[in-house]
């Protein structure tokens, strides 16, 4: 019994950022900041985290998805800048009506599965590139104005976003 409570407490400590995000969402949906809503929100977030860890997951994945609020904020700002710059780049193609579309095979330097998925979704969200298929760290990207055969195929990946994720991946490998 005592060890059971201890493992539950360790789960809660490892997932503290998820609990903070869920409580903020609860309070925002109620549109009222008082003691009752904050208390019920915290209770619901703790129950959701315990239920998910106990019944829905088959192992401990905390080390792979604890990205951290500061890294996530920096990533979101950088992603917004990349999206708007790429959107401005695409405008001449729309007005003239000419498009040169092809499918390119390229490879990222990331190893973790969740981070590769995050990068693939970011590639899809920027105008001009759509990820078609992924296996391991090989991505097939449908690209507009693609680099020629003698140039580097990694130009279609937004390299600054990959640099942020690689910096994060080096920190978790040292810890786990």
């Amino acid at each position, binding site marked *: 019994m005592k060890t059971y409570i201890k493992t539950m407490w360790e789960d809660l400590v490892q997932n503290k950022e998820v609990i903070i995000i869920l409580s903020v*969402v609860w309070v*925002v*949906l109620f*549109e*009222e900041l008082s003691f009752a809503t904050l208390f019920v929100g915290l209770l619901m977030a703790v129950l959701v985290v315990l239920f998910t860890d106990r019944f829905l997951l088959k192992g401990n994945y905390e080390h792979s998805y604890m990205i951290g609020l500061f890294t996530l904020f920096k990533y979101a700002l950088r992603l*917004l800048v990349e*999206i*708007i710059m790429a*959107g401005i780049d*695409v*405008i001449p*193609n*729309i007005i003239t*009506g000419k*498009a040169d*579309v*092809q*499918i*390119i*095979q390229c490879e990222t330097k990331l190893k973790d599965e969740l981070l590769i998925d995050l990068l*693939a*979704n*970011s590639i*899809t*969200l*920027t*105008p*001009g*590139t*759509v*990820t*078609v*298929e992924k296996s391991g760290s090989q991505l097939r990207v*449908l*690209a*507009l104005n693609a680099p020629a*055969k003698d140039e580097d195929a990694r130009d279609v990946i937004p390299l600054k976003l990959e640099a942020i994720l690689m910096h994060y991946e080096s920190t978790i490998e040292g810890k786990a």
Partner: protein
Amino acid sequence: MAQIIIWIANTIIIIGLLFMALGVFGIYQFNDYFSRILVSAKVDTVGFITIMLGLILKHGFDFFSGKLLLVLALYVITNPIATHAITRSAHISGYRIKKER
């Protein structure tokens, strides 16, 4: 001061409307499915994000803005999955383009 913030927010909303108009114009401009989804649908997403940011800036720091931010976060998470699903369905079902490497 409040008037200046409202003018800036209106300018941002008009820029977003321009992006959205380019997306809707580009969907009739091309005659190939892959060009359409590459150019026009994604520019439409840029317009959506810009309009939402303008509305958040116009409304100020409030619970209403928090809800708008929640809608924006949900859209940014779910939109690439939907686009990827459509494109993968077309690719698996045998829609091909000329150049591939």
